[in-house]
């Protein structure tokens, strides 16, 4: 790799990292309040992408819309995918997790329920929308907007990073500054005590899922714009994003953002350095290394109980 190529890999890395970060937040939030690896979050991501596809195809079936229509479509896609993601996550919590909580099920039962939900949603989507890949319409024709030291940045990259950053800033505000945020933090720290203090745990958990699902759905839409859609599209980004959440310190929101960015950039640079096929090895090697030296992730646990 030449030094002048660094930006060529850094910019896609940042874009991918931003997406991972947004998905990782979904995992980290749920882990924070439930201490549960929400395996089905990757399916929330997939549902977001497909719902946007449905909406966009319904609004404008052409594959190459004009710039003005594109703006409209992006807005519609963001709204629909966010809503669908939030709705899926909400339903997921209601059907697959809440009854288990009511029964004091062991934590591993939640894990299996999550795996079951993931299986179910994935194959349902495969059935409904066909098991072939699908593409969202090419918005903006991937035009370059500007160049940084000779490296082109496309509208799509800009859009993804902006949307991700906006969501992350919004979430940070929400968690640290609002009443709901303090509820989430309280439940994450000690659900029992929070309940005794008058926090409605069910509601907090439900809303946590909605927030995570909203972000996951939008990430799905953005990822669909960037790559394409298939019913198994959630699996790999989901696993990587969860690794990112752990790298940053699971339960720690800023940690998830950092972990996502880190893994995205590492993956992007592994292509010129080790070859593309070692991409995931590098991501997981980073994970193992980080955990060896900092067993609770880079920033440590914050939302969750301290180890």
């Amino acid at each position, binding site marked *: 790799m*030449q030094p002048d*190529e660094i930006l*060529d*890999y850094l910019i*896609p*890395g940042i*874009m*991918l990292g931003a*997406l991972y970060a947004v998905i990782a937040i979904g995992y980290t939030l749920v882990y924070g309040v439930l201490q549960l690896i929400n395996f089905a979050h990757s399916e929330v991501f997939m549902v977001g992408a497909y719902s946007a596809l449905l909406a966009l195809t319904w609004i404008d079936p052409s*594959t*190459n819309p004009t710039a003005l229509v594109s703006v409209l479509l992006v807005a519609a896609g963001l709204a629909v995918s966010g809503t669908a993601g939030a709705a899926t996550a909400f339903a997921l919590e*209601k*059907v697959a997790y*809440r*009854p288990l909580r*009511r029964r004091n099920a062991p934590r591993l039962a939640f894990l299996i329920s999550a795996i079951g939900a993931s299986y179910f949603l994935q*194959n349902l989507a*495969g059935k409904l929308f*066909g*098991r*072939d*890949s*699908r*593409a969202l319409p*090419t918005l903006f*024709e*991937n035009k370059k907007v500007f160049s940084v030291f000779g490296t*082109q940045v*496309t509208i799509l990259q800009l859009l993804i990073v902006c949307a991700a950053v906006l969501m992350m800033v919004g979430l940070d505000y929400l968690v640290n500054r609002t009443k709901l945020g303090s509820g989430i933090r309280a439940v994450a720290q000690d659900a029992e005590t929070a*309940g005794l203090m*008058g926090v*409605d*745990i*069910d*509601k907090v958990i*439900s809303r946590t899922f909605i927030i995570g699902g909203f972000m996951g759905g939008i990430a799905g839409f953005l*990822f669909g714009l*960037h*790559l*394409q859609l*298939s019913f*198994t*599209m959630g*699996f*790999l*980004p989901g696993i*990587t994003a969860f690794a990112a959440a752990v790298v940053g310190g699971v339960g720690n929101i800023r940690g998830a953002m950092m972990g996502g960015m880190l893994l995205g950039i590492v*993956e*992007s*640079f592994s*292509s*010129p350095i080790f*070859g*593309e*096929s070692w*991409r*995931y090895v590098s991501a997981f090697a980073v994970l193992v290394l980080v955990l060896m030296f900092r067993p609770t992730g880079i920033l440590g646990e914050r939302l969750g109980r301290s180890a």
Partner: protein
Amino acid sequence: MRAPNFFYKGLGFAVLKRRVIKIALPIAAAALVLSACGSDDDGDKKKDGGSTAPGNSGGGNKPTWTIGFQAGLSGENAQLGINEENGARLAVEQANAKGDLPFTLKFKTSDDEASETKSVSAAQKLIDDSNVVAVIGPAFSGPTKAASPNYAKAKLATVSPSATNPSLTNPENNFTAFLRGAPNDNAQGGGMAKYLSKKLQVKKVFVVDDKTEYGVGLSKVAKDELTKAGVQVVSDSVPKATPDYGPISTKIKNSGADAMIYAGYYQDGAPFAKKLKEAGFNGPKFSGDGTNDAQFVSLAGDAANDWFLTCPCADANVEAATKQFTDDYKKRFNTNPSTYSAESFDIANLVIDQMKSFGAEKITREGMLTKLKGASYKGLTKTFKFKQNGEFDGATTFIYQVKGGKIGYMGDIDQLVGG
């Protein structure tokens, strides 16, 4: 959590308490069972094919024979299996509906999940059914490798529309019942290399494979042939379902290669094409039959333009017979035929053809195997003939180019290159 009552005020959700689940779930479970049975009925109707078609209703004493089908019908790689299943099913249904068969034909599918772990038992299911006289499939090379010893032992012929790994017909394997219904990867890789080196006369080629058995096989042949022709080769592997084709596209652009080959399927070829266009790589781009699919163009949009796609299949899209096939297929399965649908249709017809040649004789598995090995059948896509080791006879590779959103036929590579 028992929160004070007034906290529930105005909460629509809070009323959905445990009771909902208590009632809704048994209902869901019961209905699940019902719907499972319901879809089973559908499945049976589907499976029996045209056995209730008018032409057959009179023949009470006609024997019944079954054509087996093995491919991945569930899981991640199900699409290819479904394409092939539909093609073969259509052939069986049409043959039954015609009514001139001396027997009633049935179609039995066995799902191997495109996994070699499940392949052996999937094969056994067909072997156990003594009515099965020939099998179409398995779709992928891995499951084929796993199941072929069992098929060979049972002397049950398998004709695969899409398992193109060259090593399958290696005599050491003793896969004596395996017949390949498509030219293997060597033919296409060689064709690409020839076209690049002789016709386009490029100096440096970047070869990318998708880390699947198909992609690795194809890229290896292409690399070997290109090196032989004195072309510099750079290569990398991008596992399929990679989240970002940006870095590899940049890498290709920066490598200074004149041309590139992608050995993989259209699902990943399409986003790759988009990113290559974004990265500004303008050299000739090649891919094989895994990408030669209308879906490639619809997924990649403009970015698919100018891609060269090779295929062992001649352009049959304009022929009346193919059009008829497309219409019938669409009518039956609500969707257009896709990769290997037509090949599978052809192979099913080839098998039916051989079954007919038994006439009044009893059809045996061994007899079918012998007959299939000596068969010659002209289908929609190509003429099917087999070599002694089960290899497809004939390795003509044709080349296509995407122009204006359509895959346009260019011709036989050997003829285009001129020797």
